[in-house]
Structure formats: C-alpha cells, structure tokens
C-alpha cells in the first residue's frame, strides 16, 4: 500500500471510531449515561481543565510521575548494566531479578500504604518500584546487545575505556535505551494511576476514581481522554527518536 493511502486509511479508521462514539449514544444505540457522546466529553474536558481543583490534581500527578521516573531510571539502569557486565553480580542476582519481575507489583500496594501513608511519597515510591524491574531487564538487554567484536575493533585502534564506552557502548545501546525509556514510562504512569485510585486524597487518578464512584461519566471520560493524549504523545515522541537513531538496525 502506498504511504499516503495508508495514512488516509488510518485516519478513516480513527474518524469511524470517533464518529461511533459521538453518534451511537445520541441515536440510542448505547446508554448515554454510561458513554456520553464525544462532543459532551470534549466540552467537559475544556470545562474541568479550567477548574483549580483539576489543575492542582494535574500538578500533583505530573510531579509524582516525573519524580518516580527520575528515581527508577538510574537505579534500574545501574543494576541492569551491572547484572549484564559483571559475571559475578549477574550470576548471583539474575534469577532473583527474574522472580521479582514476574510478580504483579500491585499486590505490594497495601504495604506501601502502611509504610508511606497515602500521600505524595507513597505514589512516588510505588510507581518507582513498579517501574524499576522493567528498566533493569531492558538495560541488561541493551548491554548484551553490544557486540564483543565491536569492542575488540575499537581496542585494536587504541581506544581508551572511555572511548569504548562513548563510541561503541552508547551508540549500540541507544535504540534499546530509548525503548526502555518508552516502556518504563508506561509502567510508571500505570503505577501512579493505580496508587492514586487505590488510596489517595489528590491527583488525577483519585479524581477518576471518585468520578467513577459518583457516576459522573462525562468527567470520567474527559480525564481518560486527557491521560490518553498525554501518554500517546510521550510514547510517539520517543518512538520517533528511536526510529531516527536506529536506521542501521535491520
């Protein structure tokens, strides 16, 4: 299929879904109380974005997401690199990391509440915890993607260890690291949302939970649209960078 035709088809699909969202509740095919029409939801989105309560919630959630991310990324990357580069460390800790990775992280949430309460710290701690394992795994995979031959070539031309790092490791790993960044953000955002919805006094997740409990569907869907747009925008930006840095990956 030609590229322009492909894009047109994709846009047509998106338009169909949005049109169905708009018209099926209006025509009585779906219960408008459960699924409000798209135009109502967008109008509500504009309205709630003007409320100071919602703006504060966005600020709190954004703070939690960024902080948890900033904590989880370096810790996870450090452990992952260590596990992949050091035989000693890797052999000891690798099975443990695999076990820990396989456990659903949400079952630890009550423990985080007991330790950290239900404030900002608990959200950040839980989100960082639920993100760090995927970062460890991806970082280890990124290091393992570096070919021993390439390191040997660089050394044969007299590269110092710093040069091997910047000229071989970093470019080899860059596409994988961007992928890690992207997937980690998905886990991170999920972690913050779950923590906020489960027990919280602030944040978008808490608003979504309470709107749901009070059957305020337009508000609920407005928040869903907002989060979806932010998550997709982040994901696609990193994916675009990934594609630019990995034209050589075939």
């Amino acid at each position, binding site marked *: 299929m030609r590229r322009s035709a492909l894009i047109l088809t994709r846009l047509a699909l998106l338009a169909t879904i949005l049109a169905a969202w708009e018209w099926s509740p209006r025509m009585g095919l779906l219960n408008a109380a459960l699924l409000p029409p798209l135009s109502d939801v967008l109008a509500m989105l504009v309205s709630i974005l003007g409320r100071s309560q919602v703006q504060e919630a966005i600020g709190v959630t954004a703070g939690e997401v960024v902080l948890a991310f900033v904590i989880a990324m370096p810790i996870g990357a450090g452990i992952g690199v260590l596990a992949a580069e050091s035989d000693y460390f890797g052999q000891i800790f690798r099975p443990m990391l695999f076990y820990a990775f396989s456990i659903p992280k949400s079952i630890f949430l009550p423990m985080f509440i007991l330790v950290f309460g239900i404030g900002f710290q608990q959200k950040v701690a839980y989100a960082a915890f639920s993100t760090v394992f995927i970062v460890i795994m991806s970082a280890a995979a990124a290091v393992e993607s570096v*070919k021993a*031959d*390439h390191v*040997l*070539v*660089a*050394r*044969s*031309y*007299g*590269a110092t260890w710093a*040069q091997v790092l910047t*000229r*071989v490791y970093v*470019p*080899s790993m860059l596409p994988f690291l961007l992928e890690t960044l992207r997937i980690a953000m998905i886990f991170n955002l999920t972690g913050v949302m779950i923590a906020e919805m489960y027990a919280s006094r602030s944040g978008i997740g808490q608003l979504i939970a309470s709107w749901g409990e009070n059957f305020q569907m337009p508000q609920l869907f407005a928040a869903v649209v907002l989060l979806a747009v932010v998550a997709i925008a982040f994901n696609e930006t990193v994916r675009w960078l990934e594609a630019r840095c990995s*034209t*050589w*990956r*075939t």
Partner: protein
Amino acid sequence: MQHVANLSGLRATHAQAAAIEVAGLSHVYGAREGTVPALEDISLTVGAGRFVVIVGPSGCGKTSLLMMMAGLRRQTSGTILCAGRPIEMPDPGRVGVVFQEASLFPWLTALDNIEFPLSIRHAPREERRRRADAMLNLVGLAGFGGRYPHELSGGMKQRVSIARGLVQDPPVLLMDEPFAALDEQTRMTMGHELLRIWSQTNKTVVFVTHSLTEAVYLADEVLVMSARPGRIIDRTEVTLPRPRTYEMMATDVFGRLREHIWQQIRKVT
C-alpha cells in the same frame, strides 16, 4: 623466467628487515581442571613487505596468535617484536587489523567507519576526511562512502574493513579470516583485490585462513599450524611468480603446493 628470478631476488633483499619476529611464544589457558596449553613454542619471522598466510585446523589457535600480534591478547610467555620493538598493547600506528565479517560499526557510514581509527586519536577533521577518501578509492569503493554497512554487499563490507585497517598507514596488516563468510566467487575476487592493494601499498600482511586455495594463491609463504596445542609444523615457500593470476590455480605447481600443505594438515588432525 629471467624476469621471475629478478623479482624474487628483489623480494629477498626486501625481506631482510623483519616486520614481525615471534620468539618462543607459548600460551596456556587457565581452565577449571588445570590448564590447557593453547600455543606451544612458536617462533617465526615475517620479512617486511611479505605476504604470510597461516593455515591450520579449527581451534589450533591461529586467531589467538594473530590477536597477540595485534596486542589484543597477552601470551603466557615469549616475545613478539614489531619493527624491533615488543608488542604489548594495541598500537594502531604499527599494526592494523582486519577482522572477520560484520566487524563494521552498523551505526556509522562506510566513510565514518574508515575514519574511526583516526577519530580515536583525535586527528583533525580535514586529515581524517582526506585519508578516508584516499582509502575508499584504494579499495575501489569511490562513491559509496555515504552508505551504511547494511546497504553494502559482503564483499564491499570487507573492502571497507580493509580500508579501515589501512587508514593509519601501519606497516603491518593482520587479517583474521577476512573472507570466510563470502561466497566462492566474491572470495576469489576479494583475494585478487587484496593482492592489488598489497602491491600498491607495500604492506607486510599476516593472513589467517581455512582455505588452502586462498592460502597458496595469496601467499609468499604458508605456515601450517598443528591442532592444539598449536605449533608451527611446516613452512612452505610459494614459488609462483607475481602478479598472481587466476590461471595459475590450474597449474601443476599450484596443485602440488596445495597438496603438500594439505598433507601437512592431515598429518596432525
């Protein structure tokens, strides 16, 4: 014949200076249960400007020996001299290395790959570009500098590898089965190309291969190594004249040399 005799006489005087001297080299791998001797008492001299090929069964340590000559691995005992001075660590000014296939950096263009050794020692951009362009021309890839490795054929990739090995103009070029992954025709063509490049640049080449035909076709001298522990068990002077042609492969001399080397390898495997 007169012409040939003159040529070999010329080579003999040229070969008086040794480019590489290996003396009493042994290597032992530490294994879980005791140690494994890998290389045993290897001594050899490679005259300047000579093309020496090392053949031997798989696992005989020929690649290890080459890596030691490159300063990428340390031997247990013995010395390696290059231009009279010991090789103890990689010295790209004295020794260039061409590895097996797929050693190009896939995230760099052909030109940037060739420039890599120069950029490691922070050569000025202008000099880098000038040298790399000259190398690209030498290996017959003018106009392909902007291509990425995955856009090049197997033979072209190895041309880039050779260019990268030569870009710092080292007197010695070590080649570790550089054409092993190529198909037969490409391999022949690349061997022929390598001889052209060699004669244009006056390098000393040490070339490791599995292919006896390749060995005889390329070499001034073929060294045969035994299975582990690797020792040098035969040294055959290839008396075919230069420049070599494909037709020589059909001659009796070529066949006899190839057969002789094959018999040496058979004895030890």
